[in-house]
Structures are given as C-alpha cells and as structure tokens.
C-alpha cells in the first residue's frame, strides 16, 4: 500500500497546496493593499479638469459626504533619457509644498521629497527607476510645457495610486516607457501657469456617503472648468486591475483544489475498499471479540485520516512556499512597499476539514460495509468474482478477441463505477493540463486579433491638445513616415435605460487602413458615416443591440448630451469603447475637424530619428510603438504564466500518475494470482503485462478525448469567470495544447505502467499457487 499512499499523498498535497497558495496570495495581496491604502491615505474619488481656481476647493468641500479634499497639478510629459532612444512618457503630479500630502501619500523607498524651492528636483516611481537603473542624484530631462528641463532624482517612491502603473491608452504595463514623477507644487504651478489653480482633485468620503451622488455633484461643480468626469476607486486603473487579479485568484482557488479533493476522495475510496476486502477476516475476528460497528468504522476512519495526513502537512508547507513565490511574482508588477504574507488560520482549518471530510465521504460506503458485515460471513473467504460476457462481445466483436483481450473487456465492465471514475480522474488531469495551455493560446490569439488583425499602425502619436486635422501634414512630411491617419478620443458616458458606462468614443477616419473594426467572424467591417458602433462586451453591459438609440453624455468641453443610434457591434477582446466616423464625432461635438492623435506607418530604419523628432515636437505628447506593446504584453504575462503552467503541469502529472498508478496497483493486487497462473501456464511476461497494462491503457485512451471535452468546459468556465471590461478571454485552444495535455497524461500513465510492469516481472509464481485467495 506504500506506493498508493504515496500517490494519494501527492494528490492531497497538490489540492491543499494550491488552495493555500491561491487563498493566501489573495489574502496577502488584499491585506497589503488595504494596509497601503489606509496608511498612505488612498483617495476614494478622483477628478481631472482643465483649470480651476484654488477657491473652488472650498466649494467641493461643501458637497455632502466629502471628507478630505486635495487639489493637485498634474501633467503628461515626454522624457528624454540619455542612452535610451525611445519615446518615454511620464505623468507628473504635484506634492504640496509643505511636503505633507493629505491623500495618496508617498512611501519613500530611498531619498527625500523634492525641495519646494527647487524646480529641478523630482521623485520617481520605483518600477521606473528600476527599469532604467536610476539612483538618487541621477539626471534625465523632461519636456515640461514645451521646455526642455533637466531633473535630478531626489527620491524613489511608491504610491497607493500606482500600485500597478499603466499608460492610459496601453494594453499592458511598460515600466521602461512610462513612469510617474512627483515635483513640488510650486515648481509645477509655475511651469504650467497654475499659480493659484489646479487641474486634478483627489478626495475621500465619509463612511456612508453615496458615491453616485457625490460624483454627480462633483461633475456639476467642475463641469465648467473643463472637468473630465469624476470617478471612484472602482474606475481607478491601478485599483481596478488589482481587483481583476483578485478575481482571477479567486476563480483559480475555487476550481483547482476542488478537482484535487474529488480525485483524492476517489483514490481513497478505491484503496480503502481493497484494504477492507483483504482484511475481512481481521474485521470478523475483532467483531467476534466484541468490537462493535462503531469501533470498526472509527478504526478505518483513523486509517483514512492517517493516509491523508502526510498530504495535508506537505500541502500546507508547499502552499505557503508557493504562496511566497506567487507573491514575489506579483510584486514584480504590482508595487507595494512590502508584501505582508498572511495565512489566516481558517484557511488551514478549512483545508484540513474539507480534506478529511471529503476523504471520509469518499470512503463512507466502504467503511459502512466493513462495519456492518456479520462476523461469520466475513470469516468465510469471498466467493469467486461474478463475471458476465461483456457488452462489447455481445455486439459481435467477441470472436475477434483473444482470451487476454476478453479478460480486459470483462474486468473493465465488471466494475463500471470504478472504471467510470478512473476515466473521469484521468480526464480531469488532461483537462487541467489543457486549461494551463489555454491561457497562452488565448493571450496569443488576443494579441493577434488586437495587434495584427485590427491595429495595423506601427506607431500611435498622441497630441498634447485637440489639434486641427492639418497637424497630420506636419507628421506626414517627416522622413520615415509613410502614411498617417488621424483619430479623436472623446471621454463619454453611455446611457441606455437604467444602465450607464463611462468610457471613450474613438473617432477614426472612414475606410481606415490602419484601424480595422472586426465583426464577430473577425471580418473587417466599414464604419458608417453616422451612428455609433460599440464593442460587443459594452453592448452586453448596456444591454443594447444594433439599431437601439443610445444616450451619449460627453464628459469634456461642451458636455453635450445626444441620442446616437447604435449601427453595429464590433468584436474586441481588450477594452470597451464606442467607434464613430471622425467627422460624425466632430459633428456630435460641434467642433470643426479636431483630432487628438494619429496612427502612423513608418519605416523601421528611421525609428530612432522619428523618436527624436517627436521629443522635439511640442504638439506630440506621447508615442506608442506597436512592437513594444506586443512584446510587453507577452513579457508581463510570461512570468506568471510560466509559474501557472508549471503548477498545472505538476498537478496534472500528479493526478494522472495517482489515478493510473492506484488503478494499476489495485488491479495488480486483485489479479496477481490469475496473472501468476497464466505465467505458470506458459504465458510470457509481456503477455501477462498486456492483460493488466492493456486495461490501463484502454482506460487512459478512453479518458483522453473525454479530457479534451472536460478541458474545453473548464476553459469555457475560466474564460467566462475572467471576462471583465478590461479584457475578455477568447475560448481558443490550440491543437498543440491538446497534444501536450495528452502527452503529459500518457507519460505519467506510462511511468505508473512501468512501475507495475516491474512488479509483474517479479511475481512469485510458487507462492501464489499455494494459497487460496
């Protein structure tokens, strides 16, 4: 039983370890985030505007429900970093001159805050500093309001506002090309003409304040100062991405441990029924001595607990270890001052109780059977096993089967429940493996749709302010630019019935060659001259369909409210937004031919030259390079994905090894007598191995296609559970993922097969003939 206990230990260990790993990582991140938020006063509400006098702060304070208010100066700048010839952008935020921000306080890892009387000092965020190898005293330049300015790093900091830092229009974080700088309010106000004024507000609410009321009131107040729409934490990008991550962890913590517990319970059931069968006589003897049913049941229940005990202990230890690894992986991307690893006692207690309970439930039937057996009956040897001609033979295939093949068919059919669960167990291993490969397939597919099929530009250039369409000619004249198309981004709130959603409308040129809109079959659709197209997920959120009239509230400038017909839906896996013809959007805004940026096709030989040109062009505020985007997207995913794939592969191996090995061992112990008899009759080792391993091979081969189906379902569930406004996971599973999954199952099945084959080769032919079973 040693080998089987080991196999069960592996499975229980995997279940407990993954449970503890996911839950403890989630709890740790949650606790760390909450503590960071609390200790560093993360704001509840944010609003950006064009420019408002400082006196407006008092008016904001009067809004019922608002507690602390802090005004800031914020700007989006280009950086010029010597030795790094690519476009780098940063957000600059002001720090009060007294050096004591009320909200979103900085955790200074190194150095100090900038001197309020110096306009050339800045604190940078840690990821950015790390990506460029910056240290205190290092210098770089920033184009601040059109002026090239050299800045010295006085500090390296973390902020609750930027735990995950992502460029607003980007698809994944890029620490090298986007950073946050903090400078003194005085210096920044001067540079941006914001003396006695502000363009960003952060505030906290009193407990019980109604967020939607505050946001509405706030929008009313800042509206005429060019407000871009107030939003709460849930729309704050860093907070939101983190919450999505928690959701993923929660999904995983539900799915994987459940699978393991199910498999462990099944394995225990098989092992315990075999053990109890072989110990019938001992049970009878004990009962004859006066032990009652409860005593017997407790005895075997103790055995069950003992068997899973090792799995529990190693699982808890492994879970803590994996939790730390996973925590560290998150810390690479999510910046907290420190990670408070926490493992709540209930998690351990729950994993112990659930494991024991499911193990006992799995063996309940057998325990009960053992307990209620009358002693006299139990002392008699078990009658010969009853067999029938198998179904497969009845349909006429029988006469083609050799006797060993018939033995296989009848054994499989004789224990249909065990066969069923074995098939399901192996199928689950196969499915788990598929679900791990699925993440990569889905991400590759998303990247392909987003960056290859839909967005064909090499670079996106954003203008600092709304600009006339004519600006594009300036770009087209640059050496190295082959082609350019303009676009306009307008922040809006869509309303349909009682539902609403804040996002943007992207106005693109009709018949755009660079920004293709795709229908659900990923065929390019042309943009109609009027009306709006919505991404499919947004339509779902708003519950609108094509031809419905949608209310569009513009969140900038004139703050127009219009009814716009939805003309069609477009497929998009990343983000949610609306698309309009650029001209139609400008008509809606009642603003000439304004554009907010351009998509470019460029000559890669001129890339560095173009970057330099853009740094010098005051109109250009930022640049996104498509190849960087794709690379980043993969890089950010890669590390976490590698870890998950590793864990999933390990788990799949443990499950399939555990199930196949247990089956093999049980089959071996049940059949070693018959197999020895056949050896005595002149069957070779290979021939008797066929009977035992053929059965396992058949079960494994049946299980693999079922595993494909289970894997597909599992992926569908995961895709649906992870779907969010930020991204939808397409249900795409590549052939190689299926192949790899079956390969892993086959290899682990073969390993258990080889171990049993070794035992078959060393059958004691003499011993087995002497004894009655």
């Amino acid at each position: 039983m040693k080998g089987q206990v080991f196999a069960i230990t592996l499975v229980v260990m995997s279940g407990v370890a993954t449970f503890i790993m996911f839950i403890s990582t989630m709890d740790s991140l949650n606790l760390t985030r909450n503590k960071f938020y609390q200790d560093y006063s993360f704001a509840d509400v944010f609003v950006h505007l064009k420019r408002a006098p400082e006196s407006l702060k008092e008016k904001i304070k009067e809004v019922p429900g608002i507690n602390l208010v802090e005004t800031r100066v914020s700007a989006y700048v280009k950086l010029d970093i010597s030795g790094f010839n690519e476009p780098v952008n940063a957000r600059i935020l002001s720090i009060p001159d007294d050096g004591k921000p009320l909200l979103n306080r900085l955790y200074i890892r190194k150095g100090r805050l900038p001197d309020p009387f110096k306009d050339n000092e800045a604190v940078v965020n840690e990821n950015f500093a790390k990506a460029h190898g910056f240290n205190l005293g290092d210098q770089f330049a920033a184009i601040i309001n059109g002026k090239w300015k050299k800045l010295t790093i006085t500090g390296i900091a973390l902020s609750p506002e930027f735990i995950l830092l992502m460029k607003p229009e980007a698809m994944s974080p890029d620490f090298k090309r986007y950073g946050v700088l903090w400078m003194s309010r005085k210096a920044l106000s001067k540079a941006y003409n914001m003396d006695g004024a502000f363009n960003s507000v952060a505030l906290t609410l009193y407990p019980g304040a109604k967020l939607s009321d505050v946001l509405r009131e706030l929008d009313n107040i800042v509206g005429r100062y060019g407000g871009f729409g107030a939003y709460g934490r849930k729309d704050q990008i860093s907070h939101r991405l983190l919450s999505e991550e928690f959701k993923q962890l929660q999904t995983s913590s539900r799915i994987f441990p459940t699978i393991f517990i199910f498999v462990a319970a099944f394995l225990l059931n098989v092992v315990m029924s075999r053990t109890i069968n072989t110990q019938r006589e001992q049970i009878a003897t004990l009962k004859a001595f006066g032990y009652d049913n409860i005593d017997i049941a407790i005895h075997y229940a103790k055995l069950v607990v003992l068997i899973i005990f090792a799995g529990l202990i190693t699982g808890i230890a492994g879970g803590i270890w994996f939790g730390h690894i996973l925590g560290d992986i998150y810390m690479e991307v999510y910046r907290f001052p420190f990670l408070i690893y926490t493992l709540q006692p209930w998690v351990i207690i729950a994993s112990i109780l659930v494991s024991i309970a499911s193990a006992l439930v799995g063996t309940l039937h057998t325990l009960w059977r053992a307990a209620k057996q009358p002693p006299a009956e139990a002392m008699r040897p078990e009658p010969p096993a009853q067999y029938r001609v198998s179904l497969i033979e009845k349909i006429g295939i029988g006469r083609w089967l050799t006797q060993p093949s018939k033995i296989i068919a009848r054994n499989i059919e004789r224990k249909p429940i065990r066969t069923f669960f074995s098939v399901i167990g192996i199928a689950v291993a196969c499915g788990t493996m598929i679900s791990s490969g699925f993440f990569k397939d889905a991400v590759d597919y998303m990247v392909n749709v987003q960056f290859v099929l839909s967005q064909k530009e090499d670079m996106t250039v954003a203008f600092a302010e709304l600009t006339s369409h004519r600006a594009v000619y300036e770009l087209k004249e640059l050496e190295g630019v082959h082609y350019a198309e303009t676009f306009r981004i307008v922040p809006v709130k869509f309303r349909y019935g009682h539902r609403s959603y804040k996002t943007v409308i992207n106005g693109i040129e009709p018949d755009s060659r660079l920004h293709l809109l795709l229908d659900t079959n990923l065929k390019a659709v042309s943009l109609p001259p009027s009306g709006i197209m919505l991404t499919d997920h947004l339509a779902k959120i708003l519950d609108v369909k094509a031809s419905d009239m949608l209310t569009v509230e513009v969140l900038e400038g004139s703050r127009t409210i219009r009814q716009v017909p939805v003309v069609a839906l477009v497929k998009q896996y990343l983000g949610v937004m609306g698309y309009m013809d650029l001209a139609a959007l400008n008509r809606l805004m009642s603003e000439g031919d304004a554009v907010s940026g351009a998509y470019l096709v460029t000559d890669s030989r001129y890339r560095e030259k173009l970057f330099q040109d853009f740094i010098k062009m005051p109109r250009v505020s930022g640049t996104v390079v498509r190849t960087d985007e794709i690379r980043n997207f993969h890089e950010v995913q890669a590390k976490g994905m590698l870890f998950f794939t590793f864990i999933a592969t390990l788990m799949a191996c443990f499950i399939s090894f555990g199930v196949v090995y247990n089956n093999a061992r049980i089959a071996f112990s049940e059949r070693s007598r018959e197999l020895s008899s056949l050896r005595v009759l002149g069957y070779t080792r290979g021939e008797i191995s066929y009977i035992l391993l053929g059965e396992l091979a058949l079960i494994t081969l049946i299980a693999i296609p079922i595993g494909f189906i289970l894997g597909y379902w599992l992926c569908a569930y995961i895709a649906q559970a992870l779907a969010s406004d930020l991204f939808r996971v397409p249900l795409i599973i590549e052939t190689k993922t299926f192949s790899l999954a079956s390969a892993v199952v086959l290899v682990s099945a073969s390993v258990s097969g080889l171990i049993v084959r070794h035992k078959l080769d060393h059958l004691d032919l003499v011993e087995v003939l002497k004894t009655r079973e």
Partner: protein
Amino acid sequence: MSRKKEHADNLKELVFQVQDLTKTYKMGEVEVHALRGANMELYSGELIVLLGPSGSGKSTLLNILGGLDTATSGFVSYRGDDLTKANEQSLTEYRRFHVGFVFQFYNLISSLTARENVTVVTEIAKNPMIPEDALALVGLTDRLDHFPAQLSGGEQQRVAIARAISKNPEVLLCDEPTGALDSKTGIVVLEALERINRELGTATAIITHNVDIASMADRVVHLSNGKITEVTINKTKKSPGELQW
C-alpha cells in the same frame, strides 16, 4: 499414429531425470533445506505419485520439475535438456509447450468461461486440442459456457485439468489436485487424470499426502524431510473408483 499407440511404443522413454537435487531457501532469518539431494526419474506414459507429509519437499520438487523454481544444486533434465541451466525465457517456453499444471486451488481465470479457460492455453500452444474436446474428456460438455463462479469445486478442478491437457503436454504435474475437494468429488477428478494418462499417454506426476491415492500410481515416490526415502512399484494399480478415504 495414434497417441495410444505411440504411448505403447515409447513406454520406457526417459522424461525427467533428477540427480542430487538440493534446494535451500531463506524464510526470514531461517534457512530451510527443502530438498537435500533427491534422485528420481519419470518415464513417458507413467503415472507416479509423490507422497509425503507437508514440508517433505514434494512441492519444491514438482515446482523445479515444472520450471517454476530453480534448484540450489544438482541436475534435472527434461528429455535430455538441462533444466537447471535454462534461463527465464526458455523456462517460460518449456512451460508453454511441454508441461500441463493442475493446482490444488484450480487457479482458473474467473472472468473467463470454462471453454475460454481452456482456450487461453490452446491459443498459445503449438499443437493444441480443440477446447471442447478437452472439456469432453473431463465430462464437462454441458458446462462449456459457465463461469468459474457458476461451477462446483470438482467441476472447476476438471476445467483446470482440461486446460492442462489441452496443449497436448508431455507431462502433467498435479499439486494436491484433490486437496480442496471432498472424497467423492476428488475421485471424479482422479478418474479424469487417470483417463488422460491412459488414453493420451501423458506422463503424470501427482503430489499428495493422501496414502490411498498412491495405489492408483505406477510408482510411488516417498519423500520425507527433503529426501526421497523409497520408491515403490504398484504391481496392480487400483482404478480411482476403487479408492476410498
């Protein structure tokens, strides 16, 4: 040429020759001398009984003759081939083509019917009988499609005998074939063995500790404490029907 005729012609052909055979094995800490220099022969067409109390070494001897076990020292030949020098593969082949076994506890495959339990052997043999014929020889024509669980002990043992002879073996080795049966059923089984020996001329060795069974043999080999103490020849063999115990 019929088997019966052949049997008469080759009556004195040597099948097994055993010389100074010893077998020692360890049982935990204790060394057990199962055989301490045994010598014997078995001739074609002969039926011998190996008689002795339990622990006398008769099963060990039979296992070595059957190629299931190897000797510690000494010499065993089967039709001139040295079994003590045979490797695992040739022993398997030897069992497959030349030896039929009957065990005390039948050792049938419970998932196969009577007919299939015989077929399991005929499928791999070189010159097998038709399974139904083998079962007819032991009087089981009407139980062909019954599974072991549906057969009585005696019937199961007769299936085992049919299985053993169906490959047309040179020798039939039977280890306490009636050990698990009542005397009446045991006699039916012995009758089957005797008939096979008589009609097919298969050299047969039967292990028993039952003295009465010895009187149906051509020769009786007495074993005690790992040695062959005496070999007696039955001038007049009894038929199994005349036996009583």
